[in-house]
């Protein structure tokens, strides 16, 4: 779809972002970018600061220093809501869903905001063909079509993870920020999610935070390794595997490779 060589600036760029919680440096001068058509995996041990970085990109947290750019334009001044409307689609590490809603309603909510017309008081939202079609298509793609009419509180944990992804799809974002979409999916679930995400990168690039190394190595075009709030290496799979620093700091002890 998009030739990475033609794009002047990356879709997303993080420049020198730092963030402390008191004495804890959760992000130390982090820089990374996300290019059109790629999956960029962000890996690192628990507590490394992966989710904190995602939150600073989405605007949930303000960095102490540094800047975030979308298609070359700084978005630091924009609220979280404005960034979402500009095309940042994210999934949460811990599912954030309206539990009393049906699965379909959750998806319709995403489609509604993306399309516009939230402040309508008389039309029946679930009879809005355009919205329901958009929501159903997203559910279909992640494999939730069968449970569309179920209450979100009643579906499985893994299905809620898939719903997170489906809601992001309904927004038709310019890029995806996914915080551990495979967590708790089980072997079969992560495999089908892997296949799905592989196809998704054609639509929009993905910054993928993931602990599941099989998925990371199956998907990532590039990998960044975050340890104690610091990016210690960014590169292709080959480069990361061969990096002495990475082996020392992270992979070596687990013998994951």
């Amino acid at each position, binding site marked *: 779809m998009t030739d990475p060589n033609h794009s002047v600036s990356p879709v997303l760029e993080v420049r020198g972002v730092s963030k402390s919680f008191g004495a804890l440096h959760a992000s130390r001068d982090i820089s990374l970018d996300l290019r059109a058509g790629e999956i960029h995996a962000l890996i690192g041990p628990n507590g490394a600061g992966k989710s904190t970085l995602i939150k600073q990109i989405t605007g949930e947290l303000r960095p102490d220093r540094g800047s975030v750019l979308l298609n070359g334009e700084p978005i630091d001044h924009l609220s*979280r809501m404005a960034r979402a409307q500009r095309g940042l689609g994210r999934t949460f590490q811990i599912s954030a869903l309206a539990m009393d809603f049906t699965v379909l309603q959750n998806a319709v909510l995403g489609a509604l905001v993306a399309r516009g017309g939230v402040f309508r008081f*008389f039309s029946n939202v679930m009879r809005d063909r355009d919205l329901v079609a958009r929501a159903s298509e997203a559910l279909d793609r992640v494999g939730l079509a069968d449970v569309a009419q179920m209450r979100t509180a009643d579906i499985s944990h893994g299905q809620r993870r898939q719903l997170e992804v489906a809601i992001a799809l309904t927004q038709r974002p310019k890029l995806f920020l996914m915080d551990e979409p495979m967590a708790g999916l089980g072997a079969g679930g992560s495999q089908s999610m892997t296949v799905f995400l592989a196809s998704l990168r054609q639509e929009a690039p993905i910054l993928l935070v993931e602990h599941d190394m099989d998925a990371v190595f199956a998907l990532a075009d590039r990998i960044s390794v975050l340890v104690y709030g610091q990016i210690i290496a960014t590169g292709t799979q080959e480069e990361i595997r061969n990096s002495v620093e990475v082996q020392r700091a992270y992979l070596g002890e687990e013998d994951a490779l």
Partner: protein
Amino acid sequence: MIRREQMCNAAVILLLLAIPLWAHSADAPFVITLATKVTILALAGVGLNIALGIGGLVSLGHAVFFGIGGYATGILASHAQTYEPLLQAPFVIEGTNQMPIIWLVAVVFSALAALVIGALSLRTSGVYFIMITLAFGQMFYYFAISWSAYGGEDGLSIWVRNEFPGANTLVPLHFFLICFAILCAVLWFAARLARAPFGLALAAARQNQDRVEAVGITPYRLRLVAFVVSGAITGLAGALFADLNRFVSPSMLSWHTSGEIMIFVIIGGVGRLFGPVVGAAIFILLEHFLGGISEYWQIYLGGFLLVIVLYARGGVIGALAGREVAHD
């Protein structure tokens, strides 16, 4: 398919209409007055239920809107009675005894109050929100007490019930039917709102704020609009309530009033379309029958509330009709 809740609702609304019609033919005006009271309080509750039930906003300040509606009636009517204009300069504003104009004034002013109170209090949440709405309630209450031009603590009497074109509002049944028609219209509106895009987004913000922010909606805006709509409806109810009693006093603005509206919404079923109607009916029936036995009838009300909160979260409607069926 007709659902159980819809059947419940239909039964409730038919009963509410049938009893005064019967009472009219049986010449029992007192029963009609009771039914009118239920209808008006139900309307106040439908207003609160939009903020509380859909939006999850626990407002202990809704008496402000109820009272503003009441004073709109009282003040306009008192000026019509004395033929003294409300305002001389820069232009003349006369009082009026025409209900539709009074309603409009009540709705506009309670909506404005809700806009101001909401804009400030919705910046907080949880217990702080409750406290700020309560504080605003107290401010308005003490202001009314000190406002001697309109009766201060003693309140304002309305000598003759205000007029509605084509009806004789002195006939209890006529006034009931006017209130009943308004309640039906507002229930229809509330039902549409709950199913509309706005209702979906507002309910989502209640359940998971992170989710709505992540898809790009500002919860504050949703809640402010809901609060204004909610306040305006409760204000309209206040205007009718003053006309029912032909009397307004600061007690309409007291936090007891806020508490009572909330109590019967909870009894009937928070977030259920007809919850406030059933709740108001139970409240008035308890007050009428138990109030005759003991001055301290609210002890029983408290017990009733306790049972509902502990064992029937969906209120009486929830117990009768089962769990809410989400949007279809």
